[in-house]
């Protein structure tokens, strides 16, 4: 009799233990944030993966950009193409462009569109900043994965190294850091020292 009681107790304790582990595992997976990762991460090929409130763009095994976002919309029908070809990212907190694993540019943006076939990213109402205080603003800026460039087809204004600049268009090649401004370019360079008037 005592033997059977002991056995039931053991089974009961083991069941409770297994149930607790099961509940813990379920809670862990349910509480994880979503992360949407796009492109190729090292050797693994995938379109996107959900995991935390972030959208991450990769190229050749390196993280290129990352956006902290609250809403990801896949429009059923849009002018941009077939369903699923363009994702609309809204309520964006902040975004980053990376270079060799380090944050190269920080940006705020009103809305971003991710084009899945090309993996290009279009930023609307964007302000980009660099650690030294340089900044650029544009109503539209397109990140091209193929060219590894940022292109603003509309007016852009900004300040870089004591230089204020305004132009009708701009292209930045991220690898070389070369910046090309075109169309009615106006630059003001501040020189060191002062002059008597």
């Amino acid at each position, binding site marked *: 009799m005592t033997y059977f009681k002991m056995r039931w107790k053991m089974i009961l304790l083991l069941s409770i233990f297994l149930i607790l582990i099961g509940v813990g595992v379920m809670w862990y997976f349910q509480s994880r944030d979503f992360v949407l990762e796009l492109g190729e991460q090292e050797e693994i090929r995938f379109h996107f993966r959900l995991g935390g409130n972030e959208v991450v763009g990769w190229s050749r095994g390196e993280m290129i950009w990352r956006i902290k976002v609250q809403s990801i919309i896949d429009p059923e029908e849009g002018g941009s193409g077939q369903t699923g070809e363009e994702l609309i990212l809204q309520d964006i907190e902040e975004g980053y462009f990376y270079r060799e694993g380090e944050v190269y540019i920080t940006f705020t943006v009103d809305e971003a569109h991710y084009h899945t076939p090309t993996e290009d990213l279009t930023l609307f109402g964007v302000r980009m900043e660099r650690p030294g205080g340089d900044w650029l603003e544009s109503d539209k800026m397109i990140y091209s994965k193929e060219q590894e460039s940022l292109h603003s087809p509309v007016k852009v204004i900004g300040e870089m190294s004591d230089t204020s600049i305004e132009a009708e268009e701009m292209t930045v090649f991220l690898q070389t850091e*070369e910046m090309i*401004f075109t169309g009615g370019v106006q*630059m*003001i*360079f*501040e020189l060191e020292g*002062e*002059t008597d*008037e």
Partner: protein
Amino acid sequence: MNRKIIGLMLLLVLIAVSATAERKVFIDAETARFLEDDVVHFEDGVQIRYEEMIINALRGEYLGEEEELTLEENVVAVQRKNQVKSEKMWMDLQEEYIFFSGGRVETLYYLRGQENGEENGEENGEERMVEMWSDTLEMWEQRGEVLAKGSVEALHDDMELEADEVLIEEEKDLLTAIGNVYVIRPDGSWFRAEKAEYNMEDGTMVAYKMESEFELRGSP
């Protein structure tokens, strides 16, 4: 009383602030390329504005660290009424030194008036200017000096001048021609010399190691 003192102090601060201004270079162009190391290339419809100077050219380069500016092709620099045309121009913005070169440098230089703060040499309605052609031209903005070098040809007050070098010193109102100097005066007389100093204020000239030919008028 205190208000008056505070007001006076504020006025002094305003005067001190307005007496100095930030130095800025304004560059307009159709295309600008920002490269690493603070280098900017610009081209097409280039216009530079720096203090009283406006420079137009086809293309140029600005070195931010060194504060140096290089302009090329159809360079036209205008300051007040002075004008220089050349194929290339290099400017050190810290030293306010300019070097023009390439082809023949054409210079139209208006002399500043020495009295009553008159600008551009406008005295009694007359403008005093020197027109020059040379291989190179150097300008020291702060010193008010201009040095033309290389087969210099100059016109001033109907006087024609040729020399290896011509130096204009505005503060001294002096034009100095050096090396193989050849001067033709309005009356047709001429002289050669190794060096000639022309006082642009009173029109007198001193020539060194001179050889001349002139017509004596009113002789018996």
